């Protein structure tokens, strides 16, 4: 299990202060606006930045104190970093064989064939989609227990995104104890992949919920001003004034379905939750 406890990191004009857990066998999605602190969290887990305070433990060991062998438990994807750009896929295989004790060359080759990556083209000559596929394959072919994926599908077309998601799903199905911590701006990726969603804004967690609950219990209510004045507001999380009245977010869809049949109720998406929770009138 990944356990982050009171992680604090400050930059000029920004302070991160969060705690959360990602149990084994789960996929946790970190979402939020640009500059919210998502990548800072991932970099702290990778010990790429120092912490001002707090602990980051994976299966009981602080990541700062991990041995080289323990570091093999992690597989990373960054949008702006990978193997040297003049390396080809075949060079990458030679490198990974001596870098990771648990590197699975046949799995790597199978994935390269499945995703149709060119073997002898250098990384800098590859398309954006092929680079993203290569980064993902590198992350998950050394039997990592935790994948840390920073916007793995950013800038990709829907076909390549789907290929990467399928590869990640297959990876998880192979071993139930594997976990993924993923940041993305593409909420549809999270809706199909994540078990839990954490919304970070301005360095703090403002929302945390299981995706099943979001699908089953969260909804958008569209009301006239008159309806809004009469409705029971105890389950309204956030409201926004609109031209027709009010648009509100609730986490008790069934309460309003049963008690206010004249109120328009629409399914909500993770994007709606982000838009409501980082703006609007807060009823909590």
């Amino acid at each position: 299990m990944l356990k982050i406890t009171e992680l604090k990191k400050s930059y000029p004009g920004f302070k991160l202060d969060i705690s959360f857990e990602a149990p084994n066998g789960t996929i946790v999605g970190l979402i939020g606006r640009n500059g919210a602190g998502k990548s800072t969290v991932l970099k702290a887990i990778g010990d790429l930045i120092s912490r001002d305070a707090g602990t980051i433990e994976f299966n009981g060991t602080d990541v700062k104190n991990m041995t080289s062998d323990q570091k093999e438990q992690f597989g990373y994807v960054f949008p702006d970093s990978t193997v040297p750009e003049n390396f080809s896929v075949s060079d990458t295989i030679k490198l990974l064989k001596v870098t990771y004790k648990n590197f699975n060359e046949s799995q790597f080759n199978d994935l390269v064939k499945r995703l149709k990556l060119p073997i002898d083209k250098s990384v800098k000559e590859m398309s954006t989609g092929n680079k993203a596929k290569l980064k993902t394959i590198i992350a998950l072919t050394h039997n990592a227990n935790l994948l840390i994926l920073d916007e793995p599908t950013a800038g990709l077309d829907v076909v390549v995104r789907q290929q990467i998601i399928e590869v990640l799903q297959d990876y998880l199905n192979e071993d139930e104890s594997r976990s993924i911590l993923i940041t993305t701006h593409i909420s549809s990726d999270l809706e199909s992949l994540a078990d839990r969603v954490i919304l970070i804004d301005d360095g703090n967690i403002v929302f945390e919920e299981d995706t099943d609950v979001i699908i089953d219990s969260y909804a958008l209510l569209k009301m006239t001003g008159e309806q809004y004045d009469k409705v029971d507001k105890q389950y309204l999380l956030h409201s926004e004034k609109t031209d027709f009245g009010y648009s509100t977010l609730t986490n008790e869809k069934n309460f309003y379905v049963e008690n206010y049949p004249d109120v328009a109720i629409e399914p909500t998406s993770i994007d709606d939750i982000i838009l409501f929770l980082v703006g609007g009138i807060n009823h909590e």
Partner: protein
Amino acid sequence: MSSLFVRDGIAIKKQAMVFIITILGMVIPMLFGPNGIYFTMAISGVNMAFLTLFLLSSDQENNGFKFLFTTPITRTQYVAEKFIMLFSLTISSFILTVIVMLIFNNTLDWAANQKSLTNLIALVSMAISIVAFLLIPLQIKFGPTKIQMLMSGIGALVAIILGAAYWIFTKTDFGKDAWDKLVKMYIDNGFTPFMIVAGIFTALILVLSYVASVRNIKRLEF
């Protein structure tokens, strides 16, 4: 750490031009007689130093360190490997230059003092490696772009130092005395005291650069 050597090996294979220049640098100057050895030493030594800095640049470009330090490589291992690489390349350059010098000296009948030439090759190798060792912690801290800009400054600085040394030794009484004493020391003892001092100085620079490199790389945030 072996993965770092493999990584550098793959990168070096893609730099065939470095070896072509080194080989040409070893062979062509020597066709002009014993004095060509000085050009050979310089070309070979500088090439090896640049090769090490190139390997460092190759790891740094496009945020390469970010990915590298999420693998089972520690930052200290990375610095150690780079110093081992530079040391190995410097020794290789020295050995190759000496071998080529011996071959030319014997086949072309230069009748040069081989021991003196070997000592001179060693001194020049040490001098060039000192500059490279000093650049490693700076490149780790500031990145390859700023160091490339600094290289022009370093070239100018070396020229100034050599010019200043020439002026001191030839135009000042103190310098002339010091030069006479150095010549007497060479006549009495040969290269030995100079090699000892140069060796100690090089080792000291190596240790200080290593410590600075480890400190700088541990402070890097990505």
